[in-house]
């Protein structure tokens, strides 16, 4: 029986709008990753393992490319917390993905300093080149296109992050060159961070 006479069961009112994370294939941490996680846990007081939750999620994401419900359970077991607590973290922080991403995750900084240098047009041209709208991944999972907030290198705007690497001073006209470079040489084609001093 319904708890309210006007909200009968089966009418759809009781269905949660919450989108559950994908179950995904059975996930287990590799022995190497488990050992790494245990080492990271020693950095925090023994009763504060939860501090390593972000590190555990990075390891899971590194292993599988994105975070599934199965991975969340593995993280929860390793951290000794509930799966709901892990899910909370996954959805709060922007750097965890809950769906398969492309081999190259291209992230255009869209915040003011980059936008003043043409970031909107970088996104526009990349979008046209890749046939993707921001947030999308192509069918053969080669590229994902994302817009991200200030990356903290505003003097080298527009900045584009690709996975864990950076590409700076990306001119809109050179969007095709960025894509071609990634296809040909992967991260080796990127400028990296300019603070790397010549001669090192």
């Amino acid at each position, binding site marked *: 029986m319904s708890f309210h006479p006007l909200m009968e069961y089966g009418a759809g009112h009781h269905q949660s709008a919450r989108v559950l994370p994908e179950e995904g294939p059975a996930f287990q941490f590799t022995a190497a990753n488990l050992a790494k996680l245990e080492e990271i846990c020693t950095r925090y007081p023994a009763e504060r393992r939860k501090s390593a939750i972000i590190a555990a999620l990075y390891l899971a994401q590194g292993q599988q490319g994105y975070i599934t419900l199965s991975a969340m359970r593995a993280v929860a077991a390793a951290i000794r917390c509930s799966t709901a607590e892990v899910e*909370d973290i996954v959805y709060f922080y922007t750097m965890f993905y809950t769906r398969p991403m492309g081999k190259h995750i291209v992230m255009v900084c869209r915040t003011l300093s980059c936008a003043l240098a043409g970031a909107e047009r970088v996104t526009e041209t990349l979008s046209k080149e890749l046939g993707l709208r921001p947030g999308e991944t192509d069918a053969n999972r080669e590229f994902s296109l994302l817009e991200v907030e*200030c990356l903290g290198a505003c003097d080298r705007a527009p900045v584009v992050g690709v996975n864990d690497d950076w590409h700076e001073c990306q001119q809109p006209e050179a969007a095709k060159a960025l894509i071609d470079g990634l296809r040909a040489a992967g991260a080796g084609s990127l400028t990296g961070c300019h603070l790397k001093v010549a001669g090192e």
Partner: protein
Amino acid sequence: MEPILTKYVKQPGGASLDFYMKVGGYEGLRKSLGMTPDQVVDVVKQSGLRGRGGAGFPTGMKWQFVDKKSPKPKYICCNADESEPGTFKDHVLMERNPHLLFEGCLIACHAIGAKVAYIYIRGEFYHVQQVLERELAKARAAGLVGKNIMGTGFDCDIFVHRGAGAYEAGEETALIESLEGKKAQPRLKPPFPAVAGLYDCPTAVNNVETLCNVPFIITEGAEAFAKLGPEKNGGPKLYCISGHVKNPGVYETSMHTTLRELIYDPKFGGGIRGGHQLKCVIPGGSSVPVLLPEQLDIPASFDGVASAGSMLGSAGLIVMDETTCMVWAAQNLLYFYKHESCGKCTPCREGGDWLHKLLMKIERGDGEMRDLDLLLSVANNIAGKTLCAFGDAAATPVLTTIKTFRAEYEAHIREGRCTLPASWRASHPVLAAH
């Protein structure tokens, strides 16, 4: 002023431990370990060092507030979550002078009686984290971090903790929450971190640049530090200059330097890019009010910028020339704030979205005159009504641009279009701003 913190940033190998030791590295730590913790706090207090993260709170006082009588462990949390739009100074310090930061962390730990410092670095700084971890391992191997440091019996460890993408993690209590493995949401204060911070223990949260100033204060003395700048605004200061200037970059100088010099002097920003004029500047990261070209003859100090009605904040100068539409600029920043709101306080979570919707409506040409009052009303109902300063930050771009450029808003509404569609913006505004 001769650079102090960034003196060797362009030196090949300048980030290494060997090089740092060659130029007198860890001497501040050595000297501080011969002083009592209270003496260290006193010297920092006398120096007048103010927090470089944005609020400008005196660092010595922050350390003094740490409850030393508590039986619990104490902690130093270094705020390396540098996420304020227009700010990229800590990035330089960590990547090019990591041992200066470690030395500052260790002295801070000695001062408040902590055995551990956590450097909370933003997730996007993966390459910086690699540098820090590499150099930390070297410092540990050299007996500068860990047990019995320099044979003095002082034990102190430093760990790098990587975040995962959240602007709010730069707020000190949200940083602590995140470090504890929770969502980066601020806490109700009091209690302040000095009493109940990380793991409910007495904690001091200090910005990277703040801690990097500490070794100089210890080796050269409080007076030498204070006299580098105007009264109450001593020491060297890093400025991040971005936007429409000829030479964007990080510049170290004293707080005697004026905003006009920072923007126009060839040593710094070098003036506005080819053939354009300055329209306005946001002097302290995206969260502070704009200043006009005629307001720039003030020292770029905490007190100087405050006297002009803005804030030095994180010292991130975002320079905009006359091609910049201020409705668009406000819209760009409000997209940031609505995206980054942690969702804890209703005014900020809901209000940010409403502000962005209204700005988009005006920018696309569907605005009505009454929307201006509505914008001000929503913004004023966010500012000051949230747990942390994020609410004020989110309201500021709207309040300051309407106050300073109201005619531009009215022209958008009257003409039913953006009146300044710059060539560097997307031709399809919907794609640019969803």
